[in-house]
């Protein structure tokens, strides 16, 4: 295990030692590559049995969800088992305002959806965050279900029929991008199969993927800003030892509520994007199972690690599609994989977050360990 750790640290060090322009170039190249993934359709990664663009959209969307939930669970240490509720509020706000009871454009609906979700987060959190941590789990679970049931039983909002014809983002067709197809490992440019930049239609998921990915990048940046400020410190201190934190001057309740509300807003944003892409939503899309899945993504990714949860979200969304031939056994495999992970890698896929300086201290630790082993 030490050898693997040392290898990654060596790679990381080599990366950090590059001159600044090289780092920026590499980062930009990586980002461009991620955007172009569904166009390039790399042979081993692409999902053959389903639309790769649609799968990538879901990966990006659930990454967004995971980032939001990571703030609640990973940073502030609040166990939220009802996150799908916020997702649903976002989705149905867009549905109601954009389709069933008004025809507001999507770009206006999204901020309203986020505001609505934020308010619901505050309303839920204000009374319940005072309650002990483990109770919070069941209360949030209840909240998620209450939202779904209210939606199911209130025809004005949705009813069992759901809402259809949800608006898509405004389109502006500029040019066409041809996809790349592969035979074996040789690439061919396929002029028949193109994506229009930037047209949000029913058939092509890729522009939606780009939209979701853009939001992921924005949220990642905002997350970084929060983490490296008193907000992130306060959350972490609250998670480590709430009473001690409060005695050190941290208004813990306020920060817990802030984490909850922020997470809610991001959940609402994700729901809004989901609704727009699907164009049709009904309460069956928003069951407890998803809340559980989202929690798994955060914990599997290494709670508190924003990159870890993105990796986990992507993996947990992509793998079932890639291995579709296992279709029926998917959830069984999921269950077994969770148990195995809990036993063999409880810290999650990626280790908990490290600041640059703490990582440097860790590196000297590794060098020392190496010296001792010699």
């Amino acid at each position, binding site marked *: 295990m030490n050898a693997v750790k040392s290898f990654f640290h060596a790679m990381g060090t080599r990366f950090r030692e590059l001159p600044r322009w090289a780092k920026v170039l590499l980062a930009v190249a990586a980002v461009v590559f991620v955007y172009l993934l569904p166009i390039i359709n790399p042979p081993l990664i692409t999902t053959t049995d389903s639309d790769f663009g649609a799968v990538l959209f879901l990966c990006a969307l659930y990454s967004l969800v995971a980032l939001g939930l990571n703030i609640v669970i990973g940073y502030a240490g609040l166990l939220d088992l009802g996150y799908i509720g916020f997702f649903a509020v976002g989705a149905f706000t867009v549905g109601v305002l954009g389709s069933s009871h008004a025809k507001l454009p999507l770009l206006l609906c999204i901020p309203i959806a986020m505001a609505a979700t934020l308010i619901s987060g505050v309303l839920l959190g204000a009374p319940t965050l005072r309650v002990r941590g483990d109770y919070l789990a069941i209360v949030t679970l209840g909240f998620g279900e209450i939202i779904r049931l209210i939606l199911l*039983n209130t025809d004005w909002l949705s009813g069992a029929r759901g809402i259809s014809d949800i608006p898509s983002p405004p389109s502006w067709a500029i040019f066409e991008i041809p996809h790349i197809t592969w035979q074996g490992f040789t690439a061919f440019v396929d002029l028949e199969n193109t994506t229009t930049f930037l047209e949000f239609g029913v058939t092509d998921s890729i522009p939606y993927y780009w939209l979701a990915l853009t939001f992921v990048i924005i949220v990642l940046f905002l997350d970084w800003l929060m983490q490296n400020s008193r907000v992130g410190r306060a959350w972490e201190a609250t998670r480590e030892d709430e009473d001690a934190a409060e005695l050190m001057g941290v208004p813990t309740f306020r920060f817990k509520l802030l984490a909850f509300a922020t997470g809610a807003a991001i959940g609402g944003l994700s729901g809004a994007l989901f609704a727009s892409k699907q164009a049709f939503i009904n309460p069956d899309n928003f069951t407890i199972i998803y809340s559980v899945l989202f929690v798994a993504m955060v914990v599997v990714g290494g709670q508190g690690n924003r990159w870890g949860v993105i990796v986990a979200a992507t993996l947990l969304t992509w793998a079932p599609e890639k291995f579709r031939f296992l279709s029926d056994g998917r959830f069984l495999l999921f269950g077994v994989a969770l148990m195995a*992970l809990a036993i063999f890698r409880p810290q999650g896929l990626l280790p908990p977050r490290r600041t640059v300086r703490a990582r440097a201290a860790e590196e000297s630790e590794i060098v020392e360990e190496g010296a001792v082993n010699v």
Partner: protein
Amino acid sequence: MDLLINHFWELTITGLSIGAVYSLVALGYTLVYGVLRLINFAHSEVFMWGSFAAVWVLMAVGAGKATGIGLVGFLLVGFLAAMTVSALVALLLELVAYRPLRKRNAPPLISLISAIGASFALSELMGLRDKPFKWFGLDDNLAPYVGRPRENLPFPLLVETKRLFPVFNYQVTNIDVIVLGSAIVMMVILDQFVKRSRLGRGIRAVAQDSEAAALMGVNRDRVIRLTFLIGGLMAGAAAMMYLLKIGVTRYNAGFILGVKAFTAAVLGGIGNLRGALLGGFVLGVAENYGSALFGTQWKDVVAFLLLIVILLFRPTGLLGESLGKARA
């Protein structure tokens, strides 16, 4: 409102009898939480497997319409089958999903992940039960047991509903009596066991201070296994009662019931045995009243809202925490 007033006693008594099911399952959640501070997400599947065991065994012995001694016999067989299998599944769960984590001092969130994984694994195993047989050639005789794995499986024992005696304007049925009666018997036995027996004291000791208990010579591993065993037995009994009332089971029947039972446990005060019992009954009755007042589709909403409201005014639940203390 009229519906509530006119049918008050019916709603109350049937609410109590479904509440009994919740209570018994809630016991499993509260026991494990009290001793391990763990939300045993997979307890719902312990219940579900027990229900299948009862159905399968009763199918195998050819149960159908029955009365009198035959009925008693079938009931006993059913209870026994369900309780045995549930207990076994619970013990297996402890062995495979939780003990390795305990030995490594895993943080609670990780145990929850393992619990979630186990829950999926167990319910999916039941939901895929036809697969192994398909691979080896499905014997038609086995079809009723393992065929159509994702659909309802009906309970073969048909108990003719007999109105036994009136409580005000409601005629209490024999099913109500069986369900409530067996539940009360179980609860009394458990209560006395925890209060008086050596093992029961061990459970309470480990719940309060696990290390001190170990230092006093309590075998923690054994206590924990016992906790799971008791929870399993109770869930198995609840499964049989559930089958008597609802008449079918399916591979994911555990899920909603589990959520409700856990709600009941929290309602009564998690970690508190009597609280779990009270919580179950309160929940069952409140659900019924809620259905009468607002319509059956709002039943579950009532349940959750009740929980939230109680927790707001009494954060430790109706009877507070007691098996073990809250974090000091």
